[in-house]
């Protein structure tokens, strides 16, 4: 038996396979396809202080080995989450993290404060990197002072695990990572989507209602791996890697690059059972390579 558990800041995950926010609903959407309690941790949909309708249709474009989305954080707000969603998801059998977004620092603070009360939510993922909202969102994650400010303020009110999710749309991701680490982030997750665009040449129009959107899927994997490696080499807190993970081999690449855990996003749409397959694949890899614990390969890339 190999040990799949990993440490994540203040907590311990039963295994390193998590789901990426905005791609896994509230977990229940996948219950028909697999035993979701086997997943190491579920990051639920981006949640904001108030109800958001998100962006108009069309919100999605397929691209080579990837997709653009412009969902724009559609959600019913934190109160609705607490009253209607939390009661059902809290017993899902694995750790649930809420992905928190805001247009202002105050939004982040208030939302985090409300979530702090929830027993069965061991942590939040601070999304300072959403490219699909007009105000705030990605802007916070693209400069060190603003990224630091959000984390600092949320740290005051939120006592449990704070995972900060970084935007890849920056010149130097390690600087941003260091800035949020200094303000008390317990862990750092990356990457959110790369800002991209699709055009319909025949109609001479952008495909997305918002013109630009967020790129995800295997297309971004090389960029994501590079950034995870850069950040893991810069910070001391654990790093959670994501971007284009489709199978166990991809997941292991991120772990070797320095990720203590990984998240799976877009792949869930193509294979709704991918999370457990990746989990089983990691286990198989460890057995084949005679490694007792997944912790032994975190950052074990030989340069």
């Amino acid at each position, binding site marked *: 038996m190999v040990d799949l558990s990993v440490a994540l800041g203040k907590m311990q995950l039963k295994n390193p396979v998590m789901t990426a926010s*905005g791609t896994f609903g509230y977990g229940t*959407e*996948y219950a028909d396809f697999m035993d979701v309690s086997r997943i190491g941790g579920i990051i639920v*949909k981006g949640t904001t202080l108030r109800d958001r309708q998100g962006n108009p249709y069309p919100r999605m474009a397929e691209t*080579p080995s990837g997709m653009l989305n412009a969902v724009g954080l*559609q959600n019913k707000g934190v109160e609705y989450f607490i009253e209607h969603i939390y009661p059902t998801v809290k017993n899902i059998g694995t750790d649930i993290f809420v992905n928190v977004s805001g247009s202002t620092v105050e939004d982040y603070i208030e939302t985090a404060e409300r979530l702090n009360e929830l027993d069965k939510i061991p942590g939040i993922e601070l999304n300072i990197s959403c490219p699909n909202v007009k105000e705030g969102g990605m802007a916070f994650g693209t400069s060190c002072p603003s990224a630091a400010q959000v984390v600092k303020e949320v740290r005051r009110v939120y006592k449990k695990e704070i995972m900060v999710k970084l935007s890849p749309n920056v010149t130097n991701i390690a600087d941003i990572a260091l800035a949020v680490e200094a303000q008390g982030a317990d862990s750092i997750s990356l990457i959110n989507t790369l800002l991209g665009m699709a055009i319909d040449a025949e109609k001479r129009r952008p495909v997305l209602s918002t013109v630009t959107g967020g790129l995800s899927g295997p297309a971004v994997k090389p960029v994501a791996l590079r950034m995870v490696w850069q950040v893991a080499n810069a910070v001391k807190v654990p790093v959670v890697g994501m971007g284009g993970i489709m199978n166990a081999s991809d997941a292991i690449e991120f772990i070797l690059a320095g990720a203590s855990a990984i998240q799976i996003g877009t792949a869930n*749409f193509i294979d*709704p059972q991918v999370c457990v397959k990746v989990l089983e694949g990691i286990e198989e890899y460890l057995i084949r390579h005679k490694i007792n614990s997944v912790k032994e390969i975190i950052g074990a890339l030989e340069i």
Partner: protein
Amino acid sequence: MKKFILNLVVKENITLNTQYSLIILTSADPLPPMLPGQFAEVRVDNAPNTFLRRPISINFVDTTKNELWLLIQKVGEGTKKLCEAKSGETMNLVVPLGNSFSLPENIESEVLLVGGGVGIAPLLFWGAYLFERGYKCSFLLGGRSVENLLQLDDFAKYGKVYTTTEDGSHGEKGFVTQHSVLNGHNFDAIYSCGPTPMMKAVAAYASRKNIFCEVSLENTMACGFGACLCCVTDTTEGHQCVCTEGPVFNILKLKW
């Protein structure tokens, strides 16, 4: 309804014409329960430039033969690849997805199903379903030309078939909403699937006449089961996902 990921076997791939294929899938195990209006998310194998699954309506389910039919129009690389499926190959489907058409309240209802192009796909299953339950349906099917009218013989088993073509090559010349049957008859329920302008015209007719009307919408989908929120349409209740709240919507709910 419980959703499944199935590897179904291609029993037959019937090329209807250069644009359309009817793919008959089957399985050793009994197929799961499915309702008319629902769809499948089909994985496209061996296609270098497609990445996501493709949403395809359930065209027909033959429980006696354990068959699931897909009617596919080649529009891009994904559908082209699916139309090349060979007997004996497997196709991977996430199914059944979405809601379904609602039964008319009254068994005496005069029911009209209006389809355009490949939009007739879900209507065959729905027509058969209504017929089996004793409803009286008519079918009004339109297309640009006679090649775009599909499965007419199948539809004829379940009710009277009216057709229109824009070039007059079959049935009345013009659009479905110009067909004379809409003047002669008073329908109690209309169900429609096809190009958006057609459905809007049908919806306008139904609204004017105050007829119960449901339409089946398309949208760009990444998942097909409510996880990504990519497929919204604007409704009186805000943005709703076509893959879970639809694809079938009552026209009173839609803001289009």
